[in-house]
Structures are given as C-alpha cells and as structure tokens.
C-alpha cells in the first residue's frame, strides 16, 4: 500500500516562538497523498492548514521551528525526508516537483515584474536545458535553411552552457546583451503556451501585464500557470479561491481538475469550505487545532463521519428546512491548548480520558483514520 504514497507526513510538530509565548501550531500532523489523487485539507482559521502546506515545502514562516516528525516525499522512486535535505537539494524540488498556489494571488505576485518575467523565471530555473536545446535546434535549422555553415557566438554559447551549465565564463558571457535572444524567445513562447493552457484569452497581451492590471481570477490563473510550469508531481493549493467570486471559483476549480488529470499530478487542496472540498477532492483530511483528526475517502467522510468534530462541522452546514446546529464554544488558543484531546472541551462525547490522553491517529476502517478516544485510539 505504502509504495504508492507520493507524500507522507508523520507526526509533524511545529512551534512558533512569539512574544507572548510558544504557539503550538502543529501538534503531530499525520497525512499522506497517493499518486494522482486530490487530498482536501479542511479546517477552520488558525488550525494550521497553511503552516502544514508551507512545511511541506520546508518554508517555515519566521518565528516557527519544526520540532519533530517526518515529511517523506517520493523523488524518483526513492523516499526522502524533506526535513533532512540540504537547502540546495530542496531548491531543485521546490517549483519543480512540488509547487504551490496561494490565496490572494495578487499578494503573491511581485508587483514590479510582468507576468511573463515571473513565469519565465521558474522555467529558466528548472527547465533551462530543454530550452537551450530547443534554441540551439532552431538556430541550426535556420542556418541550414539559409545554407550557412560554421557556428555563431550564440550557438557556441548554448553548446558551452549545455556542456557545462555552472561555469563562470558562461555565466559572464550570457550577460552580454542579445547573446541569448533565441533562448529567451523560446522561453517566452512557452510562457504564452502555458498561459493559453490556463484558458486565458489573449495570452500574449496578458504576459506583458503587471499583476495590478489583472483581475483576481486572472491573477489566480497566472499563479496556477506558474505553479504548473514545470509539471510538478504535487501541487499544493492553499485556499486558492477563497477571495474570488463564486462564478470565478467554479471556473478555477474546473481548471484545476482538468489540469490535474492532464498532468497526472497529485493535489493537496486546502480550504475551509466544505462545498469546495466535496467538489474537488478524492480523499479528505480534517484538521482541528494543529491536528489531523480524521482522514478518509470523501464519500465515506460525508456519509459516515466518525470524529465528533467532523460531525459537528458537517452538521453546521446550513441546510434549508433543518434546524441550524453549531459546535459550542470557540477554537482554542494554541498558546495554551487544552490538554489531552484538543477538542475535548467542545465535544459532547468527551470522557474523562480525553482530558488527559492525546488520542492516537488510528486506522479504524480500511483507509479511514481517526484520532479520537471513542474509537480506541488511546491504546
């Protein structure tokens, strides 16, 4: 079973050291994503969804510190713990194997660069060789057509760069203006191609725009284009439609679905909206106060939720004709989280043991994991 898991997070613990004390943001997060599936991660504000996603890229926001756990990722058939990789190795994974789409696309685009320059950056970073070859090929072809022989400076440069990408002389030579014209053209062409694939009308024009000139939906498409530019194995989407209109949200959701099946990527989709979750995901992980409390197939979860929090969450969806239910109390502060099970003080099934013992994450049924003492998790 485990061999098909693309990403596996085991017991991830992360604390923030702030002025007011230690915020225990992640308290042993467990989840896994299989090849080619969409995992929906659902939870309320401040439950640690975004922190989990950033940790997957090993980009921990500043006062935070990972204090335990493993993040196993399948790189070329080999499982590696991302937390133990060198920064250099991580950089070859970021943007190439794992990429990310954020909420508020315009905040996550650099306001002073055009769309095309921001997308080509990631292309040049990870797919440079491909474009060098393409450029070289087209240059050779053109010269053959014209019946010219020998080589030009540009050609030489490409060949040298292909042979020895990290040499200093090549880097300096490539700084000469105009020396990489064809290479840049190839990259540009790819940018436009990717943008068109995102269903953006008039991609040539959009490529030349600055982020502030784009509408929210358009900007989110650009961010998705940037994330999918290198055909990643895992796409992390952190509430990508939260601030968009419902009609635009529907467009983006169907775009992600389409691209996912096209690229055969896995998706980690983070949201607080249960509607979106049921729409897009194959399996769902429910988070509460720094823990994944339930992980199951989406049909199973909606039909037969096991954890009291999941139940409460599903019941608080407004449905006409039914009385509105809600979970009493409020989300606890992670500065001083409740002992034992962090949900115990809002839970109507709470037992004595819940106050003391933190329930383990157990497979109750096949592929259905719960962290709750009701299901013998405390064993």
């Amino acid at each position, binding site marked *: 079973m485990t061999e098909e898991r693309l990403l596996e997070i085991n017991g991830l613990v992360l604390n923030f050291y702030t002025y007011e004390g230690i915020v225990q943001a992640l308290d042993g997060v467990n989840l896994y994503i299989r090849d080619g599936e969409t995992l929906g991660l659902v939870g309320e*504000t401040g439950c640690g969804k975004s922190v989990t996603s950033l940790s997957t890229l090993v980009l921990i926001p500043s006062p935070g510190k990972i204090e335990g756990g493993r993040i196993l990722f399948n790189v070329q058939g080999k499982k590696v713990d991302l937390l133990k990789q060198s920064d250099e190795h991580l950089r070859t994974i970021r943007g190439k194997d794992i990429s990310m789409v954020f909420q508020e696309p315009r905040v996550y685009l650099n306001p002073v660069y055009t769309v095309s320059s921001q997308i080509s950056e990631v292309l040049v970073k990870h797919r440079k060789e491909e474009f060098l070859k393409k450029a070289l090929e087209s240059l050779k072809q053109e010269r053959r057509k014209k019946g010219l022989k020998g080589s030009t400076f540009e050609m030489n440069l490409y060949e040298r760069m292909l042979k020895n990408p990290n040499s200093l002389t090549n880097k300096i030579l490539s700084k000469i203006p105009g020396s990489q014209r064809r290479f840049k053209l190839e990259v540009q062409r790819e940018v436009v191609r990717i943008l068109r694939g995102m269903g953006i009308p008039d991609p040539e024009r959009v490529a030349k725009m600055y982020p502030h000139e784009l509408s929210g939906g358009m900007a989110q498409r650009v961010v998705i284009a940037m994330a999918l530019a290198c055909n990643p194995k895992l796409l992390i989407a952190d509430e990508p439609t939260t601030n968009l209109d419902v009609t635009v949200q529907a467009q983006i959701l169907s775009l992600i679905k389409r691209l996912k099946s096209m690229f055969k990527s896995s998706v980690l989709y983070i949201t607080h909206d249960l509607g979106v*979750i049921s729409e897009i995901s194959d399996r769902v992980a429910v988070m509460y106060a720094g823990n994944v409390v339930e992980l199951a197939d989406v049909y199973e979860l909606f039909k037969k939720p096991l954890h009291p929090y999941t139940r409460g969450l599903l019941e608080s969806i407004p449905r006409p004709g039914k009385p509105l239910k809600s979970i009493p109390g409020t989300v606890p502060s992670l500065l001083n989280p409740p002992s034992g099970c962090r949900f115990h003080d809002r839970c109507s099934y709470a037992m004595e043991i819940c106050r003391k013992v933190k329930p383990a994450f157990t497979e109750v049924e096949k592929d259905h994991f719960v962290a709750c003492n009701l299901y013998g998790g405390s064993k």
Partner: protein
Amino acid sequence: MSTLLHIKGLKKYYPIIGGIFKRKMADVKAVDGVNLTIMKGECFGLVGESGCGKTTLGKTIIRLLTPDAGSIYYNIPEDILEEIDKLEKENPRSSKLRRIREEYDLATFKGRKLRQLRRKMQIVYQDPTTSLDPRMLVKDIVAEPLVAQGLARGSEAKKMVVDMLERVGLSEKHLCRYPHEFSGGQRQRIAVSRALIVRPEFVVLDEPTSSVDVSVRAQLLNLFKDLGKDFGLTYMFVSHDLSVVEVISDRVAVMYLGKIVEVATTEELFKEPLHPYAQGLFASIPIPDPTRRRERPPLTGDVPSPVNPPSGCRFHPRCQSVTDVCRKEEPQLVDVGNGHLVACHVISSELGK
C-alpha cells in the same frame, strides 16, 4: 404584511478622479437604478458577486451614503404612495410632491433628521476586526449609539449595555476588554449588540458571517433569527454565500452589476432560478455533498467593469441565450407570477407568447 421600504430608481455612483488636474474622469456605477420593496418583519436576502453593488445598495438605503438619484420611502401609507405615483406622472415638480418626499423619502433627509434616522436603521458589518474601534473598550463601543443619540448615559447606559450583551450571549465580565481579546464570533456579537442597542426597526446585515469560522457561523445565524423574532426586526441580509441566504431569508434578490435581475421568495428562487445569471450563479455554488457534484459548466468570463457596463442587458456578453434585443434594450423587472420578478428579455418574451 405591509411594506416597510419602497425603493425607486435608486442610483449611487462613485466618481473616479484622475488625469492631470485630478478631475472626475468617470463614474463607477455601483447602484444603477434599483427598484425594490421590503416588507415589514421579513428577512430580505440580497445576493451577488463582489463588486456588484450589493453592499453599496445596503448602505445607501440606510443613508450612510447619499444616493445620486431615486427615492427611499420608509413606512409610507399605501394611499400616499399611490398619490406620489400620480403626482410623478402628472407634474414631477409640484410642491406637494416635494412636501411628501421631504416627509417620507429618506433620500432627502439631512442633518438632525438623518441622525434621528440612525435610531431606526442600523448596520452590522462584514468584518468585526475592522468595524470595532481597536482602541475602545467593549462597553464604550456598545454604548456609543446610546450616548451619541442622547438616549442614556452613565449607569443607565451601562445597564442597557449589559442587558444587550447578555442577550447576544456575552456577559458583564466582557465589558472592560478590547476587541482584539475576543474571537471572531464574539466580536461579531459585540457588533450586533452595538447595532441593536437603540432598538432599530430595520437592520442591514452586510455579509455578517463571511469572516467567521464554519462552526461558529451557525451560532450567529441562529442569533440573528432569534433576535429578529424577539425585536420584531426587518433584515436586509447581504451575502454572496447562497447557502446561508437560503436558510435565513424569506425573499431573495439577485444583483448583477448594479442592477436587480431577479426577485422571488427563497423557495421559488432556489428551486428554479429563471434569469440566466441567477442560474449560472446557483450552478457555481459547490454543494457540500460529494454525491451531488456539479454537471453544468460554470459561467464563463469575468464580471465586466461597473465603469463601462455593457449596453442593453448587462449580462449579455456572458449569457448563453442572448438575443439581439438584449444588446440594445435594458430589460425591466417583470412579474412572472406570484410576485416573482425577473429582468430578462428572453423570459418576458416567452411569457408574452
């Protein structure tokens, strides 16, 4: 049920300042000719995408914004309303009409009259982190309308504040705290008690649940329902979250680019939306049930800019069943039966046949 508000041809434009001399370049037509009636004691839902002018409409009705045209008749007897219609047709400049409007039309209110209106009409904002002054204590925040209106002060005001706080589920111990010490749901409760402490008749709820967590949202919705019943309130519930509107509203209006495109009772509208935009909007809502995934393709394109809205029917560039007349003529709201109003050429022509 009698009507509480009659809104006629209401317009609110925001000027765009620019150019070399910082002159007015154009207008954002946020609300562009809205006709509505709101019944006493109902919860009137207003849905639409962001930027369609629904918040502006709400704020203009309670006169936090000054409308550029149109009238808002509040608590007006039927016979006088008929008289106004007659007068408007005969002689729109008659002094009698002016006198009536000065008495009933909120759009003409100024100064003291406007401030007294604040006792009758209140608002709850979308985000309580920004609508509560971060440097004021809860007791001062909630008491502010009382003090400003000169209704109560000192210990009397304090007693009213405590009563109100207890009514929304907070208590006396919360009096001397700053807003940032509360959770989102509690903050919204504070905002609600500030709005209701002057015992208004009409309350605009401007996306009051969009910034709180799912598990708390239901608590707030229940609170609104209870308070509405107990205080005999009329609500205008502005939201883009259709599932919330569905459970709380009695009637719903759908707004697109500054215009109302459809009005109906909640059951009718959610069962069968008629306007193509309403249909697209309803199809776009993700349903929290994996067995009922969407089949219909979503609406294409973005919402056009409200500065230069499309000619004719504003929805025509995105509409599937667009006809020639849609590009030229603006459709009017037409009753298709049972008080179900739709502004669509295609539907009204079908009806005509």
